[in-house]
């Protein structure tokens, strides 16, 4: 992350990293996760699921900070985040 000025205690903080998983068959393509992801991790994909909806996919998974907003806002219980160690 680009910082305007490096804080003195920057070593004490660790930016968490998350891995996004999507259960594509539950998705109805409402786009809420794509639109409200604060880190712009997701995008809509071109493929379709069994009901013909376009599920999202992670376009830049490395940007995810495991805030879990997508998990909470998804009305279909089809997206979740697992926090992982980057190292």
């Amino acid at each position, binding site marked *: 992350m680009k910082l305007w000025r490096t804080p003195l205690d920057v070593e004490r903080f660790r930016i968490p990293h998350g891995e996004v*998983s*999507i*259960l*594509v*068959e*539950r998705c*109805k*393509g*409402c*786009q*809420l996760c794509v*639109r*409200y992801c604060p880190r712009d991790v997701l995008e809509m*994909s*071109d*493929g*379709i*699921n*069994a*009901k*013909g*909806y376009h*599920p999202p*996919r*992670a376009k830049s998974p490395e940007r995810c900070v495991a805030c879990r*907003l997508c*998990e*909470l*806002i*998804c*009305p*279909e*219980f*089809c997206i*979740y985040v697992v926090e992982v160690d980057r190292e």
Partner: protein
Amino acid sequence: MSEEAQGMGMVDELAGVPTVEEIERHPMDDLLRGERLPHIWCQGCGIGTAVSCFISALMRSGLDLDKVAVVSGIGCTGRVAGYIRLDSFHTTHGRAIPFATGLKLANPEMKVVVFSGDGDLIAIGGNHFIHAARRNMDLTVICVNNFNYGMTGGQMGPTTPTEARTSTSRRGNLEHPFNVPYLAAAAGATYVARWTVLHARRLERSIYKALLKPGFTVVEAISPCPTLYGRWNRKKYGTDMFEYYHQQAVIRHDAQPWEVDIGLAGEIVCGEFVDVERPTFQQMYERLHPDVRPAEDLGLLHRPPTELDAGFEPAPLPPIDVREVTPAQVGTVSTAQVSEAEHVEMRLCGFGGQGIVLAGLIAGKAVALHDHREATFTQSYGPESRGGACSAAIVVSDEAILYPYVTRPNLIAAMYQEAYTTYHGQLAEGGVLLIDEDLVQPDPETGQRVVPVPATRIAEQELGRAQVANVVMLGAIAAVGGGISTEALRQSVLESVPKGTEELNARAFDRGYEYAQGVMASSIAE
């Protein structure tokens, strides 16, 4: 076909998207009846988000899950009880709170949550709501407010904002709506909060607080209904309504409940408006009746079996009468073209939202009004507006039709795998099966004549509107025959679609016709 269209395939071809088998379960699956998912709520509906927030709050609350019950009434939100893997009950319309009251009084150690919609809690159940608040019954009420009666077709209700258009207030609602936080606060609730579902984290925190606070606690979750309320008020997609919340919602915890009315376009005041202490019904009961013990202590709830129970076995269910259908009943069908027959049955099937019922209606009108033949049209669909199994059946004949239902269709148009699985076995000898090839994988062993038409893909990528997929399919039906003349069907399409979309629908019809003819010509050549 464009390169883009060719690149579009079934789910397992999606690059970078893991399939269901590859990954573990959703963390909320422990509290969801996964076998019933995907749920019936429409694309862009916020009820699912409210349920996510509830489950997340419940998991965080540390409550004993064996002692939590969820009670719902009728309506879209009434389905919540059926999706949560807890003790749950789906009551009659408006009676969620009375049922929950009884449940709580008989089991004082339980945490009872009422999860229902505005139509159920505030309209038909309004009196129960205010009296439970007055008594300060120990219940947590989560009221999902979408401003209309969603499941029954978007009628106006007591929470519809003034001047909002709905299917029963087409020039705008002339009444003033209930202000739910004010109603709850005035009647005596101890905790009242309101959030939109866009405030997912704050909604979750409020539900968490409400679950742990004794007394009648109310959380109102403002939720979009894009299919009905949104469509009538120029917010057609879930994202449009979320955008509206994003722009208009303000958080004002110190607002007085009487100041938080919701207008059609003005601001939506959110926040925690009431957080007070009052003795609950249970506490008053125990203070005034110290000698009365709970029913469980008296052994009334778990009665040991007596000799009367021993000989009792439920009566066996009567056998189901299966009606035998012989091909002779169907009439003659030429193996070459369906359209030559005097009596043709056809079935269009898919899921709600694809326009199956409208397509059936258009076909029926074409026969009756333009071909001047006899036709019957029957439809079947679930309570949900989008996503449920849906079927339209048409009988076409030169003579009066004595039995209006379809038993052995000569033509089936299936636009969804489940619909195909349910109905393809009914296809009459020599009949034709039209399928949306991206959504249906036909069974090759049946030997049925299948005409694959990628209706949804054509509608979405070539015509730019997924909604016209049903008209593309009608075009394909015209090409196959189906006992309806092409001119009649085309005319009927143009008369039935919304004004201003005639040109698009005509193109969709012609494209479907042309595509299906191409498929059939190539199959004859083989």
